[in-house]
């Protein structure tokens, strides 16, 4: 839409989805993150999706080196990073090629035409320059020589050509800030702080940012550039920040340690996309958190188990392949009934799979993946803010029931950001972690009659000397036992202890809609936002559909069977080949429709909505 004076005129939008795409070295993640912060500060609801390659510095200009950052923001509730971007910023031909298939027809593409040279076009596999033929006729195109415009804007700072070109992400950000009427000050403050020691670089970046913004102010009326206004989202009053899943989970675990007054020891080994959890917990030294970067995944969990034996809470964090390596040690923690929190930030598998792409395919591994009859508690996080609550719950359940607790998150939640209303730790419920200090009748497998948890006596306590191990123990004395009836009894009690936890967790609620509706979409984990929006839209279309989102994977909530059987039909939507569907069928003989997706990309709202329509009989 072209108007006389674009700088004065705004189109009002409820929500908009913008995708920044460029080369790995173009700084797209930084651009997107900074745009998200400013958007959040302005009070819009938002959800982001960083989509980057596993290669650290992939060859320049290639499609597999494209790094993208998508943000969906609005004055309405936003719960996914958006199905189809409305605006695509493409810094080179490869970025255009990779991102174009997802773009909304009629959407705006801003391209750096300076990067559309023969070399880059060849690398992206374009025979013809798409900017010069009609292949983009379905979209609005804004061609800008961003590289040249950036170089002009920073020429006074005496930077080399390479450093000067690096500022082009800030030029682009300046333009996008203008488009969406967002202030520059938070960015300039951040640049000044970040480049405190190299003020010329700070000044050049700020100049580029301002130049991009000024370009918008002075743009020709015939341009496709248009200003939009996205208002504030009505949030509950309070203090907010943006947070991604791994950061929130780290804070949740720390909060759990505070609320239960139990020291934390994290043993971890770097792995994508879990490493940022190790980084975060490594920075909590003033809280007494000990972190140990182990020599491998096995040592990581074993050190955590050792710490728990010694009276701390051991935690280990990894992703699918690393969890596989930890499997035997999880069995040791089950057998010795020691608390340990195991974080699995799932990624596309099997084997190395696609490390930076998201999936929910470790459900079987979490619930069933061990030798012997070896139940553990499994919790799933469904969005970044939920990670905080799940972190606390994992600490509470592990220490109360003397059991490993597996937390399933995934690469999407780990990296995606959204606004989070900051809690006050003083208002969160405390819980008591009990150590046994009374030698009267003590043995290490003496159980609490209610929780069935064994007595936790930590080394250093007089009168409580004991030895434990992975060999079967006598129920009555805790000593080694090969007695047949005893093994049956111990196997039963380990299963019963975990099953009983169903009485200590929240009953399953219906997050949208109501019990007994014709149709329900059941999900778990990071599909929450997409399912929520799809169900909301379907209900708007008059379809009688509800959304049930399972957070307690094992044990399952005690009312879940009744609830699921109250619906005429159930769709189970998940990013794997139907693992939750199998689990619920095995548990409840539930005959559900399995909607699955394993492309490494989150569900689109439209994909779930279409399935709802078909299953509701609205479409065949």
């Amino acid at each position: 839409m072209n108007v006389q004076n674009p700088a004065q005129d705004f189109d009002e939008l409820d929500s908009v989805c913008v995708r920044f795409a460029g080369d790995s070295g173009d700084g797209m993640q930084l651009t997107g993150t900074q745009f998200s912060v400013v958007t959040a500060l302005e009070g819009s609801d938002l959800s982001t999706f960083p989509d980057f390659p596993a290669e650290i510095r992939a060859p320049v200009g290639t499609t597999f080196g494209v790094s993208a950052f998508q943000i969906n923001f609005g004055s309405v509730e936003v719960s996914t990073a958006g199905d189809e971007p409305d605006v695509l910023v493409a810094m080179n031909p490869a970025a255009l090629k990779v991102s174009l298939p997802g773009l909304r027809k009629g959407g705006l593409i801003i391209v750096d035409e300076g990067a559309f040279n023969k070399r880059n076009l060849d690398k992206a596999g374009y025979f013809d320059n798409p900017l010069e033929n009609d292949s983009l006729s379905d979209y609005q195109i804004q061609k800008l020589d961003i590289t040249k415009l950036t170089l002009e804007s920073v020429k006074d700072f005496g930077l080399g050509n390479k450093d000067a070109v690096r500022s082009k992400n800030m030029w682009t950000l300046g333009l996008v800030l203008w488009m969406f009427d967002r202030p520059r000050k938070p960015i300039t403050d951040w640049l000044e702080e970040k480049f405190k020691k190299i003020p010329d670089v700070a000044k050049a970046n700020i100049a580029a940012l301002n130049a991009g913004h000024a370009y918008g102010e002075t743009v020709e009326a015939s341009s496709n550039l248009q200003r939009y206004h996205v208002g504030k989202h009505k949030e509950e009053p309070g203090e907010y920040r943006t947070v991604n899943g791994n950061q929130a989970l780290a804070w949740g675990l720390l909060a759990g340690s505070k609320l239960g007054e139990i020291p934390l020891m994290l043993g971890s080994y770097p792995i994508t996309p879990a490493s940022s959890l190790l980084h975060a917990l490594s920075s909590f030294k003033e809280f007494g958190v000990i972190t140990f970067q182990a020599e491998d995944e096995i040592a990581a969990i074993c050190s955590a188990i050792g710490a728990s034996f010694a009276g701390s809470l051991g935690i280990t964090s990894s992703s699918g392949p690393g969890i596989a390596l930890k499997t035997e040690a999880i069995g040791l923690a089950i057998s010795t009934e020691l608390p340990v929190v195991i974080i699995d930030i799932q990624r596309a598998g099997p084997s190395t799979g696609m490390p930076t792409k998201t999936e929910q395919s470790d459900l079987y591994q979490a619930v069933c993946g061990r030798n012997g009859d070896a139940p553990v508690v499994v919790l799933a996080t469904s969005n970044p803010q939920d990670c905080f609550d799940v972190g606390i719950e994992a600490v509470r359940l592990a220490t109360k029931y003397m059991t490993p607790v597996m937390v399933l998150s995934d690469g999407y939640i780990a990296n995606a950001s959204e606004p989070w209303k900051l809690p006050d730790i003083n208002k969160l419920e405390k819980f008591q972690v009990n150590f046994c200090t009374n030698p009267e009748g003590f043995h290490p497998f003496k159980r609490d009659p209610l929780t069935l948890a064994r007595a936790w006596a930590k080394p250093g306590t007089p009168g409580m000397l004991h030895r434990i191990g992975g060999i079967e123990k006598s129920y009555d004395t805790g000593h080694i036992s090969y007695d047949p009836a005893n093994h049956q009894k111990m196997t039963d009690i380990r299963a019963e202890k975990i099953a009983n936890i169903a009485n200590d967790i929240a009953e399953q609620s219906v997050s949208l809609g109501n019990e007994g509706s014709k149709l329900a979409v059941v999900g778990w984990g990071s599909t929450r936002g997409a399912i929520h929006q799809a169900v909301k839209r379907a209900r708007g279309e008059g379809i009688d559909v509800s959304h049930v989102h399972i957070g307690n994977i094992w044990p399952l909530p005690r009312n879940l069977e009744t609830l699921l059987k109250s619906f005429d039909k159930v769709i189970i939507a998940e990013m794997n080949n139907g693992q939750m569907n199998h689990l619920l069928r095995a548990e409840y003989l539930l005959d559900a429709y399995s909607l699955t997706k394993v492309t490494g990309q989150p569900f689109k709202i439209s994909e779930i909505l279409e399935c709802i329509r078909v299953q509701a009989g609205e479409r065949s």
Partner: protein
Amino acid sequence: MNEQTDVKKLTFKDFETDQEVRWCPGCGDYAILKAVQMTLANIGATPENTVFVSGIGCSSRFPYYVETYGFHTIHGRAPAVATGVKLANPDLDVWLVTGDGDGLSIGGNHMLHVLRRNVNMQIMLFNNEIYGLTKGQYSPTSKLGTRSPSTPFGSVDLPLSPCAFALGAGARFVARGIDTGLKELPLILARAKDHVGASFVEIFQNCIVFNDKTFEGFTLKKEAANTQIYAEHGKPLIYGKDRNKGLIFNRDKFALETAVIGENGVTEKDILVHDETNKILAQMLVELKSPEFPVVCGVIYCVQEESYDQAVHKQIEHAKKNGNDDFNALIRKGRTWTVE
């Protein structure tokens, strides 16, 4: 038990548990158990502050028989578990029990790193050059050509030397003892305990069932004087029934040699004096093999450096002193906004 027990000096019997020991009759582990219980009594160990951690294998049953805290873990992983114990509570005195299969095959990586990091604990590696608990397969320390159920035509891969491995991994304390050496072993283990950091002690242990007499060449008591050297810091490396043999350094060959004092012009002054802080010497001593050479026991290498657990806790104490442990402030760091 009453409170008076605390002040009474404990004897080795106080470190025995009520559990029946289940090693094969005649196993070298019995003697080592006795030596360890004696050591604990001698050094005045506090049972509740002492933790024995083991992996899997015959040797790893050890913790069940010592009246302290104990953790019988999984195959090869004891160093990692023990590291967690020590990091969580550095006041605990941690002893690790492992074998040649557990510590150098399945757990070789963990052994490497616990030594490199210098986590404060005593590591006792019972070397019997065989897999006992799985019924006699060859191990990474078995001699070339070992016939076993899995190598019926003899093993074809070279064994490794545990002490050379430990030195290569950066161990700051390396010692050797013999299962039946009830006089020397408690002294060596007490030195291991004194040393702050990872103290590695290889103990030659006879497996009476699957690898009997494999060390007989140098462990037979009546021949021991001629086949072993007990290294002591600052003392010449002399051995032999008549105390007239010793180790000399051949500069031309850059190698150790044996010599007889009084023969070929060799005097006592030519005999090397043991310096336990000299790593090059330690590396040469651990490579001396029977029967060409006497086998060197005792404390072969010992230097004192900050341990890993000390360094980790130093950082934490520093952060606690200079930082703020206000959780609400932590999550409010950075950019926040308020909705009215």
